[in-house]
């Protein structure tokens, strides 16, 4: 399923059958205002502006393989930003998402290297590990009733410590040993980190995976029961519980989806670089959250979209690479990101006011 089909079917969902009579209390919303009510409108406008800006100031930005690099940059953030966005729509955060990626890569690498000679064993164990971390976060959250900020801050610190300490303990080093000569490495690399050629341009396979996951996330959010529950537990947990939505199940599985994302990106990093640096990943959780928020997800839950998050991550990729292509000092990047985040938040706020105005 392609993004355009997704977008088209999402638009379908908007055309409600218009009842012939009205009760005179709610005025019909204009089509323009209904369009504005979509979460991804603000970020789409912002992305076009950023695109035009770098298109104008950086000639390299205009080449096709530059766009491939931008998309690759965007995909490494974007794949994780999707489950992070779903979790945010479901009303929670996961601060352990950034180090979780590295934990997963370390697990796969060290299990493969120390215990077997086949990377697939490590890959599967890492998946189980990442899903378990997600389930742990979710379980702790629903059982204690603590805010997810606190629960996942704890997991974040624990994983960060584990990453450094266990890697040092086992390898005697800050990075893992290369697994590039092990069985199954090339197979796994083909899945997680190969290059494919589209219309003469070499593109990283993560870009395709990113779009596949985005289509899947959109479908789940807008077209399935589970998606309905995600919006409901984020929008009003108590109402959702009262009408019979399985709140606990929904929250725990959302955290596990973040675990899945961390595993996938972790596997990409492992098979792209052969080794894993144990101290990496810290701070990325905020980039995922920023992409989701720039993409129109409401920080307080109950509102947002997968497509918006894709565009949010794409904007992130454009700024990261655009600064390089424009020959600016990359130190400016975070400033740009911050401005974008604030700008997007203000635009989204304004749009939501317009859309829900009676």
């Amino acid at each position: 399923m392609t993004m355009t089909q997704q977008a088209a079917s999402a638009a379908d969902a908007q055309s409600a059958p218009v009842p012939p009579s009205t009760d005179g209390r709610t005025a019909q919303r204009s089509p323009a205002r209904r369009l504005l009510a979509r979460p991804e409108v603000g970020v789409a406008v912002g992305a076009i502006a950023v695109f035009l800006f770098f298109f104008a100031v950086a000639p390299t930005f205009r080449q096709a393989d530059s766009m491939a690099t931008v998309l690759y940059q965007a995909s490494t953030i974007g794949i994780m930003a999707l489950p992070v966005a779903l979790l945010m729509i479901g009303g929670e955060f996961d601060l352990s998402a950034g180090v979780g990626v590295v934990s997963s890569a370390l697990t796969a690498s060290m299990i493969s290297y120390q215990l077997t000679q086949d990377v697939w064993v490590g890959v599967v164990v890492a998946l189980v590990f990442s899903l378990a971390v997600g389930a742990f976060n979710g379980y702790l959250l629903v059982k204690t009733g603590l805010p997810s900020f606190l629960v996942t801050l704890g997991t974040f610190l624990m994983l960060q410590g584990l990453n450094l300490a266990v890697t040092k303990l086992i390898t005697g080093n800050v990075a893992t040993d290369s697994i590039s000569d092990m069985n199954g490495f090339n197979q796994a690399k083909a899945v997680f980190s190969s290059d494919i050629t589209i219309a003469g341009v070499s593109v990283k396979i993560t870009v395709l995976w990113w779009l596949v996951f985005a289509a899947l996330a959109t479908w789940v959010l807008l077209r399935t029961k589970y998606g309905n529950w995600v919006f409901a537990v984020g929008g009003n947990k108590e109402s959702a519980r009262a009408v019979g939505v399985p709140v606990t199940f929904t929250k725990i599985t959302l955290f596990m989806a973040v675990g899945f994302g961390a595993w996938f990106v972790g596997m990409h990093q492992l098979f792209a670089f052969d080794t894993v640096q144990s101290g990496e990943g810290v701070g990325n959780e905020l980039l995922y959250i920023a992409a989701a928020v720039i993409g129109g997800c409401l920080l307080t839950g109950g509102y947002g979209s997968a497509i918006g998050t894709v565009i949010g991550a794409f904007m992130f990729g454009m700024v990261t690479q655009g600064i390089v292509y424009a020959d600016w000092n990359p130190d400016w990047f975070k400033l740009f990101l911050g401005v974008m985040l604030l700008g997007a938040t203000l635009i989204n706020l304004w749009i939501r006011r317009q859309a829900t105005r009676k």
Partner: protein
Amino acid sequence: MATKETSGTTSPPIVELSGVGKSYGNIRALHGVDLTVSPGQVSCVLGDNGAGKSTLIKIISGLHQHSEGEFRIDGEPVRLGSPRDALDRGIATVYQDLATVPLMPVWRNFFLGSELTRGRWPLRRLDIALMKKTADEELRNMGIVLDDLEQPIGSLSGGQRQSVAIARAVHFGARVLILDEPTAALGVKQSGVVLKYIAAARERGLGVIFITHNPHHAYMVGDHFTVLRLGTLELSAARAEVGLEELTHHMAGGAELAALKHELAQVRGVDTDELPSASLGAQ
């Protein structure tokens, strides 16, 4: 389809409480309460703040369990473990502030937790067209006409939101509808809208438990009145046995009212002669 059932028919009660009580730790919120709800009847539960109204309906709706007495559904003693249990037995609750998820469209709210789907598992998806059509029909049957089911339910008025929640409960086969202070935050007109739907639900043969602290609202639709005071029964009477004056009097706590009037008389600037004799505390 609307079959008019008058109060006093011989249809057996759906929900029966006898001597029910509930303690939160060492706070005895409810003690020795009886309540009966029959099809096609509106049973009003009145009481001041803290009287135990919410505690009572939380027991019936499965959010809490009673710690004394007996709770029967269709004659069978039960202990409900969750709101889902209550829903499965046909007891639906519309909470004042918990009725809906504001940012979700009306039709998604209508089917929340009981979504219709089509297709086989990996491709099982929401049947959006059918859900919108059904929601529209059900709302119209209850006399609620909305222009746009896609609008977030939070953009409807309070009365309309409550009404959608009522229509929703009726559609999902509720036999007993519990409404927790549905009119408390509403203006006069909006309250009227909600009272109309309570009557409509009764017409369709549902048993309604209507919680309120407004005796005027209760008297407009009620068939039976239960007044709670400090967690115990102050009054339990059928419509034929009690008038609005008497209801208001019980509600305001008779003797206490006289004492309050006396106290107010001591305060300069309050003209107690202008106060209505028994309806203090009512709107």
